[in-house]
């Protein structure tokens, strides 16, 4: 991927090399300019202009394709965020199947984002920023390993001392808070990945 910086370096190198080549020509006066309208001169000028146009169009096409791919990536991150919102809603019902299904969708989207980044040959640190599977697995463990809803239902059904009931209630509250925190961390990571990809878009 050619960034703005490397384009500038290439351009500067081209100017220097061109100047160095021109020096002996100017010094020894090998070529002299003669304004003549011959068929050969006109053909040569046309060919040069066409080549310039072709090269410019080609470079523009590459840049546009690159921009499109990055736009797709950014939209992909948006879909991951939307998936996380959807997961948050499933937590209210506490149905294990719904929660794990919603998390799997987010996980597959995350895996696809990494695959796209690898395919587009993004640097390793950008790819690492977009790896969310570990976070998703941790959230899945917390919400489906010991589902809060199931514990609460069980506590309400079974007779037990108030101390035990309170203890379980505080544990489930802690679990809920932990999931909230993990979810927030994951959202921040997705935002960061969006910023990193967006930054590479402007470079």
């Amino acid at each position, binding site marked *: 991927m050619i960034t703005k910086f490397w384009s500038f370096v290439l351009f500067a190198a081209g100017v220097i090399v061109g100047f160095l080549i021109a020096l002996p020509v100017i010094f020894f006066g090998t070529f002299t300019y003669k304004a003549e309208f011959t068929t050969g001169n006109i053909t040569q000028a046309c060919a040069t202009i066409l080549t310039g146009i072709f090269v410019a169009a080609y470079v523009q096409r590459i840049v546009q394709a690159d921009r499109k791919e990055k736009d797709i990536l950014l939209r992909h991150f948006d879909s991951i965020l939307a998936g996380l919102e959807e997961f948050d809603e499933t937590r209210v019902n506490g*149905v*294990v*199947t719904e*929660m*794990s*299904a*919603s*998390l*799997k*969708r987010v*996980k*597959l989207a995350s895996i696809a984002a990494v695959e796209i980044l690898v395919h587009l040959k993004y640097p390793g640190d950008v790819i690492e920023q977009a790896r969310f*599977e570990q976070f998703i*697995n941790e959230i*899945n*463990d917390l919400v*489906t*390993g*010991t*589902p809060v809803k*199931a514990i609460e239902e069980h506590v309400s059904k079974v007779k037990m001392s108030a101390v035990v009931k309170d203890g379980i209630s505080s544990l489930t509250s802690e679990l809920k808070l932990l999931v909230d925190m993990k979810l927030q961390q994951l959202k921040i990571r997705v935002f960061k990945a969006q910023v990193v990809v967006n930054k590479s878009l402007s470079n």
Partner: protein
Amino acid sequence: MTTIIFLMLFLKIASDFTTAPGPRHISEGKFSGELFRRDVLLPMVRKAQSANEVLTVDLDGTSGYATSFLEESFGGLIREDDLPLESLNSILKFTSNEEPDLLAEIHHYMKEAETERKKRVGKK
């Protein structure tokens, strides 16, 4: 010339059990890990053991797995059905293209269940 034929049993959770795996216990809801282990997985494992075949479990195609479902299904084989990890390792193979990290997760549950089983056997 001797030809060795390796026979293989195949179990795809999405088509042989459900596309929407549920909670841990039967009492908690539909398509639980306990039900899967009891009615689908264990009979297949027994079949593989008696025929000396490899049972490949395909995890793809479902809507997603709850941790409790996986633990109850595969850890449960060791903890509840008293099958040693060593014997299961030689006949059970897992495959997943969608979520390859599930394989390590399942092996982790099975190892933990084996530790628990060994403790129980030691006490006896």
